C-alpha cells in the first residue's frame, strides 16, 4: 500500500492465452467421456458433499478447463466419491474417475 493507501489489483479475468493445461490433457486422455460435459449441473444438484457444504462438482470441469489448479485442488478434496453424480450425468461421464485422475494428476504434476 505504501504512501498511497491502495495498490494495484490483481485481475480476475480468465486469460486463455496463458493457461497451463497439462492436467487437463492428462485427465481427458485418461477419461475421454469428460470431453462431453455440457455443464448442466445435474451432478452438483445431487452431490452429497454439495448438500453439506459449498461444493460444486460442475465447477471441477471449469477449474480444470481454465487450469485453475489451486481452486481445483481445494474443491476436489471435498468430494466423498459417493458416485451419485456419475449416476445422474446425462452424458454418462465417469465423474468418479475424473475425480481420481485429478487427484492423481495434482500429485503427479506437483512433483514434476
Amino acid at each position, binding site marked *: 500500500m505504501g504512501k498511497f493507501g491502495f495498490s494495484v489489483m490483481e485481475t480476475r479475468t480468465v486469460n486463455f492465452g496463458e493457461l497451463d493445461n497439462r492436467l487437463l490433457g492428462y485427465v481427458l486422455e*485418461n477419461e475421454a*467421456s469428460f470431453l462431453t460435459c455440457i455443464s448442466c449441473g445435474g451432478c452438483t444438484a*445431487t452431490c*452429497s*458433499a454439495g*448438500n*453439506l*457444504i459449498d461444493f460444486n462438482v460442475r465447477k471441477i470441469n471449469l477449474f480444470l478447463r481454465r487450469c485453475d489448479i489451486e481452486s481445483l*485442488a481445494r474443491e476436489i*478434496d*471435498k*468430494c*466423498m*466419491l*459417493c*458416485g*451419485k453424480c*456419475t*449416476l*445422474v450425468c446425462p452424458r*454418462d461421464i*465417469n465423474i*468418479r*474417475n475424473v475425480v*481420481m485422475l485429478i*487427484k*492423481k494428476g*495434482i*500429485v503427479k504434476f506437483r512433483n514434476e
Partner: protein
Amino acid sequence: MNKLLPEIFIWPFIIGLAYFSIIVLYRFVRWTLGLSKIDKIRIWKGLRSRKTLDSAIEAFREGLLHRKIFRTNPVLGYMHMSLAFGWFLLIVFGHFEAVAYKGSLSFPVYLPIFFRFFVDGIETYPFMHFFASLMDLLLLFVLSGVSLAYYKRFNKKLFGMKKATRLKSGDRIALTALWLIFPLRLLAESFSAGQLKNGGIITQPLGNLFSLFVPLELTTPVTWLAYSFALGFFFVSLPNSRYMHIPAEVFFIFLRNYSVRLKKRVNTYSLVQVFSCSRCGICLDTCQLNLANIHTQSVYVLKNIRNKNLTDEVLFNCLLCGKCQQVCPVGIELIDLRITQRIESTLQYNSSYSYLAGGEVKQADVVYFAGCMTHLTPSIKKSMLQIFAYSGVDYWFMDEHKAPCCGRPLMQAGQYDAAAVLIENNQQKILASGAKKLVVSCPICYKVFIEDYNLPDIKVQHHSEYLFELMQMGSLPKRLTSEKSIYHDPCELGRGSGIYDKPRKLLSNYTSLIPIMNEKEKSLCCGGSLSNIKIQMSERDIITNNALDEYLQYSPDSLITSCPLCKKTFARGNKIMVKDISEVVAASIVQKNKSNACADKKVLEQAL
C-alpha cells in the same frame, strides 16, 4: 551302471534343483521375515498346534489333489491332479524303489529321478517288477494330464473355458520344459529298457519295439540328457514363472491356517498370495467384465503385481463383485488384495472433510441410514418410512437432509484414511443417538457399517434383514400376490455379507420366487458397482443388459433386489419392472391399511 554316458548328464537337473531350492527357501524366509510381529507370533504358536497337521492335509488335498478345481471343473481338476499328484507319486515311489534298490536310505538325490538309467535289468532288488510297472503306470497317469494340457492350449472349449491366461516368456519356458519332462522320461526309460531290459509293463514293450529301428546306443544317452535338461530348465524357470505357485501355495496354506491376515497395506503376505496364483484362469471365466471385452481380471492383477507393472487402468477396472474370489481354487483373497493395491496407489491423494464437524443428532430406538444411492431411488426411502410408520418404530432418519456418505465408496477406491473421517463423523452421531439398532437401506453402506464402524451394542441390519425380523414379530402384513418374481442378490449383500435367505424368506410372503441358475453365491453383478472407477457407462450397460436378458428368460413379472444401486442400474435397462424388497413390503401396507392413510400421507410428504 550305464557306461555309455558319464554321470555328468545329471548336472542340468542338479543345478536346476539347487537353484530352485535356494530361491524358494530364500523367498520363504523373506516372506516370513516381512510379516508383522503379530503374524510371526501367530506362526510360532501355530507351528506347534494341530494347525500344522491340518495345513499339511490341506496342502495335500489342494496342492496335489486340487479338490477345489475338481469341484468347479472336473476335467481341469483331473489335469492338475494328474500332473501334480502323479508327479508326487512318481517321486515318492521312486524313492521307495531307490531304497529297495540300495537297501539303505542313503543314495544320491538324483538316483530316483534317473533310476532306470542307472539300474541294469540283470541286477535284482525287492519288488523290482512291481516298482517298474507301478512307475510306468504313474508315468502314464501324469502323461494323461500332460496330453490334456496340450489339448487345452489348442482347444480350451473342451474344458468349458472361454478364456486362457496369456503367457509370459518365463511361463513359456517352464511350460515347455514341463510338457517335455514326462514324454522325455517315457522315451528315455523305454530306450533304456530296450538296452538294459529294466522296463515295466509299458516301457519294456516300448523299448523292445524301439530297439528294432532306433539306434539305442545313441538315443538313450541323448534322451536322458534331454530329460535332465528339461528338468533343469523347469526348476530354473519355476521361481520366475507361474509354477512358483506350487511351493507358494503350500506356504500360503500354512500361513492362512496360522491365522495370518491381509492388512490394509501391501505386505509379504500379499506377495505369498500373489505367488500362489497358478493362473488357472478360473477367475477369468467367471468375470462379467469379459462381456464388455475388459481384461483386467484378478489373474492379471496378480501377474502385474508380480511383474511390477500394475496400472490404474487395470487396478481400478473391477466391479469387486467377489465372484472370482468365490471360485478361486487357491483361496486367494482377491478382493482385499486389489483393495490393498488401491490403497497403496492412492496414498498421496488428498482429501479434506473439515466441513463435517458436528451435525444434528436425534434420540431414537432405531437409526435409519438410507444412503446416497437410496436418495437417488426415493421410492425405497418412501417405502421404508411407510413401514416405520406402520410398525410404529421410534426412529431417526439420520441422512434425511444432510449427512456424509458412509465411507465405503472411498474405501473401494482405496482411500481408507479419507473414509475414516466420514466414518468417525457418522459413528459419533449414531452413538449419540442412543439407538440400539441401525437400519441401512444400501448394502454398500451396510458392509462398511458392519466391518469398519465401531458400534458396540448397536445391531446393524440391512433393511431386508430388518424387515424379515419385523415380519417374524408379526409387525408386517403378509399378502401373497400372484406375481412371479426373481430375486437378484446384490453383490455386497450376498457374496459380500452372506445374506441370502432372509430376503427370500421375507419375499415368500408376498410373491413367488422363481429359482434361477445364477443365484446366491453365483449371482450376477448388476454392473452398477461403485467399485469400478474405470468402466464406461456403455460397458456397464452391456453387463446390465446381459444380466437382465438372463433373468428375462424366466419370464418373471418383476425383478426384486435389495440394493438401491442394483435397482437404479437395472431400471436403466428399461426391460422389466424393478422393485426393491422394501417396496414389495410397503405395497402390502397401502392395501391393508386405509385407516392409516392420513399418517401415511404425512410420512409420504416427509419422505418426499
